């Protein structure tokens, strides 16, 4: 049984695909999400084998979502779209799995067969994902929020998740630190910390070869010995 998550902003479309998947007896739909932000959280927490991902969704599209997934824990992705010439062409060119709505059962079976056969291999989604994220989905207290990367001063990975500090607030991101490092301008200053270089006000050098960064809004982030050199290089300091 494949564990699957269905992400689609349309209720009927979700239900329809769910039914079809259940009918195949090969898939267990462990979650249905109505937008990419919920979807991202579900993928990160439930670690499905396969995600059925609608392209057109509000705020963050299916392709945006794909860019936000950690390559290390990347599930198989099957794109689902009603009509999108460009996306379909990209899928064809890169031999990615995709389904056209309304989904035909036979086509779905074919897709599942392929997924089962290549269960260990992961395709390279590079050609259709973005290098830089424009919005970072976060969950605050009882709300969903989309942060622009340059608002973030510090990102840190803690037991409770990845936290983002802006000038005033603290949010919990649905992305891994690694994705943030790769897809934003934040740079690594510590195993568990990223810093926005344009927000650094002061780097205090400590005796043990490490350092402490203070940001414009007086947040602190530790700098480990290993990354201090990288940061010094970046700013042309010796």
């Amino acid at each position, binding site marked *: 049984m494949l564990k699957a998550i269905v992400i689609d*902003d*349309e*209720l*009927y*479309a979700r*239900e*329809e695909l769910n*039914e079809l998947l259940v009918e195949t007896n090969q898939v267990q739909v462990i979650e249905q999400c*109505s*937008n990419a*932000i919920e979807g991202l959280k579900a993928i990160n927490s439930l670690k499905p084998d396969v995600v059925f991902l609608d392209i*057109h969704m*509000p*705020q963050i599209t299916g392709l945006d979502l794909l860019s936000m997934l950690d390559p290390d824990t990347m599930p198989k992705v099957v794109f689902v779209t*009603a*009509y*999108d010439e460009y996306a379909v062409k990209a899928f064809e060119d890169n031999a990615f799995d995709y389904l*056209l*709505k*309304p989904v035909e059962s036979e086509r779905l079976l074919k897709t599942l067969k392929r997924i089962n056969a290549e269960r260990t291999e992961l395709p390279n989604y590079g050609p259709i994902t973005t290098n830089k994220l424009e919005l970072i989905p976060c969950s605050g207290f009882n709300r*969903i929020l989309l942060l622009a990367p340059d608002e973030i001063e510090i990102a840190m990975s803690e037991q409770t998740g990845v936290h983002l500090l802006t000038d005033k607030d603290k949010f919990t991101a649905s992305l891994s630190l690694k994705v943030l490092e790769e897809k934003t301008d934040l740079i690594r200053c510590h195993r568990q910390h990223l810093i926005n270089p344009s927000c650094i006000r002061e780097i205090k050098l400590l005796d043990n070869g490490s350092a402490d960064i203070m940001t414009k809004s007086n947040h602190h982030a530790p700098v480990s010995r290993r990354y201090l050199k990288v940061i010094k290089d970046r700013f042309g300091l010796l």
Partner: protein
Amino acid sequence: MEITLLLLQQLSVYLVIIYLLSKTPLFMPLIFVSGRNSHRIACYVLFSSFCILGTYFSLSIENALANTRAIGAVMGGLLGGPVVGLAVGLTGGLHRYSMGGFTDLACTISTTSEGLIGGLLHLYYLRKGQIEKIFKPMKALIITLVAEVIQMAIILVVAKPFDQAWLLVQSIALPMIIANSLGAALFMSIIQDKKAIFEKNYNAFSNKALRIAQRAVGVFRHGFDAQSCQKIAGIIHEETGVGAVSITDREKILAFIGIGDDHHVCGRMISSDYTLKAIESGEMTYADGYATAYQCSIHEGCKLGSVLVVPLLQADGQVFGTVKLYEPKQKLFSTLNRSLGEGLAKLISNQILLGRYIQQKNLLNQSEIRLLQAQVNPHFLFNTLNTISAVTRKDPKKARELIQHLSQFFRSNLKQDIEQVTVKEELAHVHAYLEIELARFADRLSVTENIADELLSLKVPTFTLQPLIENAIKHGTSTLIGKGKLEINGYLLEKGKDTLVVLEVIDNAGQYQEPSNARGLGLQIVDKRIKNQYGQHYGLTMTCETDIYTKATILVPLQKQ
């Protein structure tokens, strides 16, 4: 008495010269009083010459000259105004002075004052707004008579010795007063005739031109083809009375009516050198059959003896056809019809171009409507099919309803060539669309509608409301993660003395962006079509507060229906 007869003899020759001159274009400036400097200068030159001529046609009497100089001076003043009168009088006077004699100074002064007197009468009628009255020969007669009497008085006062002057005036006063008054009256009469003939011709010309123009209006609405050309050729033939009329495009005869229509057949390729020349050069060609030989290029026995070929020009100067007027061999081509021919070609060109423009505009309107229809975008269609497919499983009854809505939506989309629909009909179209979108966005879209009842029977351009709602969903509510809300309002608004029909579509997304290229094309077309129909004050306005709302407002005038 003898002097009177002799002077009248001189006057006859003088008048013959004037009559002959009146046949030349030199006289044209005299028949209208325009007050322009060109007119004044023409008057000055012409009447100064007449004034001097009058001095030469004189009889030598008592060491002085009995003459008809006064005619030129008074007429110059009458037709040219006081300044011209004064100048003509002075010129004539100085010329007389140069010839000497004991009255030389007296004559200079009197001639100058005669010019001024004529000018003063001109001024008088000008002030009274009755300038046309100066063309009355009787007026010229009286004013010249008065001027001559004054001249005699001046001679008596100025010329020395007085005794000699007195003798002179006794012998020349009567002949000069008679000859000059009569001469001025006849001169004016010649001008008047000339003016009458010109006006008659002019009227005939403009009447003809106007009648043809009136009848030609709208003939080319459906384009420059054989049918419309045949119709126009018929009108020209009737109105001008020429022997035959033909219209061609660049290659062939499109229409021919009149003498010789047995062998000048429509659809025949152009063979006449004159026509080919006119097409190539873009200039009128004319063969009068006498100075320039004309022979019909199709048939030797053709009765047509002269031809005028006028090219039809596009705005860029390109020739796209010709109009040809023919006269038979025994008839002369009237100048009237020749100049009319030129004007006609212009008129026809304009009518054809207007016809083309209207046609293109209609095509554009139609293609724009088609474009709006074609904007039923594939996203919508496939998403709808997917929704229906999903609904079918759970609720076949609802699925059937959705299919009905979809077919109604397409049906009203395909209704072509309908410019206007009632608000009620447009709302039905909107509802069909909304039912589908409501099903598709099931839990994420809600719509409130508030349309005043009195609006339902009013007419609005087709595809006015639906594109706005589609836009509000596509670029508005569907981009929201939360719940989308749509509000549709319709009401009447009193604005000054006008009543406006207001239609609003408001979404709670606030994602509107200024249109760029393809995006927002639907909205632009909605706006353009309303402006085309009702004027610049009406149309579509978009207001937006980012992330709060976008509001599309349509204004159209309340039509008297």
